[in-house]
């Protein structure tokens, strides 16, 4: 029973990792940009959530109404003002610039909020649980997982059933020809980053309600996000969810064996998948 419990908790934890990863997956898919600052942007969203809850006295989930558009706006401006200039045939400039951005965000957060661990207060939902067949399932992890599934379903719908998504795919296929169709690449990339950071806002708030955070935790979230993307297969959003779940389950099972093995087990699972299936478990099928 304890093992089943570990697996169930791992699956639910995987939802959070999938939310970390969805934004990464989206921007890599559209513009081949690997965003090293992604983890720090998640943490930035958590801090924005904290400031909003403190200033307005609202629940962190209500704060999303402000944090999501704020992060989307930051994403659009960041992309058009900075990251678009780094994109080209060379993959190194975006890596270096987003690495620098990561350092800047961390230090700015440190300056603004100090290094003390802080937490978003979610109230009763944090400790509420459902009893299902002898298992105690936390409401918050369950909600996180449901939000992850909904977010990925929504992204999938945007990508494959809207004209915005058509533009994303076209620009990803061939930037010049997409430009001929009246799509301004710079604007499309800005919209993609805005969408990615809107999802990141959700991830940041859920992270902040689940655990305490400080300005330095972004790097770890970035790694989890990367691992989920790679396990699932690049460019496949549902694969990213599966990747997050595999990572989450590996971590909780590792922790069950020995509490010190939690992170290691996740990384080992990632390496095993990478060695056996270098393209991930569900790579996007190229036509």
């Amino acid at each position, binding site marked *: 029973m304890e093992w089943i419990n570990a697996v169930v908790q791992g699956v639910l934890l995987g939802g959070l990792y999938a939310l970390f990863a969805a934004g990464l997956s989206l921007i890599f898919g559209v513009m081949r940009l690997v965003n090293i600052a992604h983890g720090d942007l998640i943490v930035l969203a958590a801090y924005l959530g904290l400031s909003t809850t403190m200033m307005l006295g609202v629940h962190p989930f209500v704060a999303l109404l402000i944090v999501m558009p704020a992060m989307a706006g930051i994403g659009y401006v960041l992309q058009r003002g900075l990251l678009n200039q780094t994109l080209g045939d060379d993959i190194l400039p975006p890596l270096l610039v987003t690495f620098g951005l990561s350092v800047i965000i961390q230090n700015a957060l440190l300056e603004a909020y100090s290094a003390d661990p802080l937490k978003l207060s979610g109230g009763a939902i944090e400790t509420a649980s459902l009893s299902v067949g002898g298992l105690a399932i936390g409401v918050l992890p369950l909600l996180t997982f449901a939000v992850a599934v909904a977010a990925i379903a929504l992204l999938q719908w945007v990508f494959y059933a809207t004209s915005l998504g*058509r533009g994303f795919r076209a620009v990803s296929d061939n930037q010049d020809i997409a*430009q001929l169709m009246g799509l301004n690449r710079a604007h499309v990339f800005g919209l993609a980053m805005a969408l990615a950071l809107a999802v990141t806002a959700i991830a940041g708030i859920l992270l902040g309600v689940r655990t305490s955070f400080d300005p330095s935790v972004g790097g770890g979230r970035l790694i989890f996000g990367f691992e989920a993307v790679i396990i699932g297969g690049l460019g496949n959003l549902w694969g990213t969810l599966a990747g997050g779940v595999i990572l989450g389950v590996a971590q909780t099972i590792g922790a069950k064996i020995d509490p010190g093995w939690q992170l290691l087990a996740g990384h080992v699972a990632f390496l095993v998948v990478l060695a056996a299936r270098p393209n991930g478990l569900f790579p996007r099928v190229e036509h």
Partner: protein
Amino acid sequence: MPEPLLNIAGLDAHYGDFQALYGIDMTVAEGEVIAIIGANGAGKTTLMRSISGLLTNAAEQVAFKGRPIGNLRADQVAYLGIALVPEGRQLFPSLSVEENLLLGGKVARPGPWSLSKVFELFPILKERRAQPSTSLSGGQQQMVAIGRALMANPELILFDEISLGLAPVIIKSIYEALPGIVGEGMTAMIVEQDISKALAVSSRVYCLQEGRVSLEGTTGTVTRDQITAAYFGVDA
């Protein structure tokens, strides 16, 4: 003389340090069908890229309806009413046939062309509408590329090497569809290696040679010998 639809004046196009076009002068009046011929490397595709905005130049080197557009980006040029059918089709592999066409309609200028009109012109595309665009044959892909450009309802449509790599019977059917397209009052520039095909559908012809205009004339009056000389740069 009325204002030309497209006026190219002293166009010098560069790829980095390499100069591909040298002082090209060209005018296209509304409703004309212009053939652009020339050997490989003469600068035909560069000319198409310069007009469509994929290659930016000094603003006044390309003017469309009297407005300088040489420095505009391709998406801005598209909204003004110029569409390019690119060399080698260049469909979006992630998009279905129908999505490729719909994307072409993003610019959505007012005009006669719509999805149903394109399907009327190329009925096979309607049957294949849900397929990935790259699963089609070369000729069908060319139909999608043409349809995609038409969906924007451009005033000027540029065809770059539309017969390249296609079977003769397919080329024939695509050229048979051309009058139906330009008959809608659209102005067209056709880049073509097959000179007789190009001359058959056009009213005027420009020949490029090593980045310069080597011959210009109405298709009725230029002779084979003149074309040969302009094409190869040798006296026939």
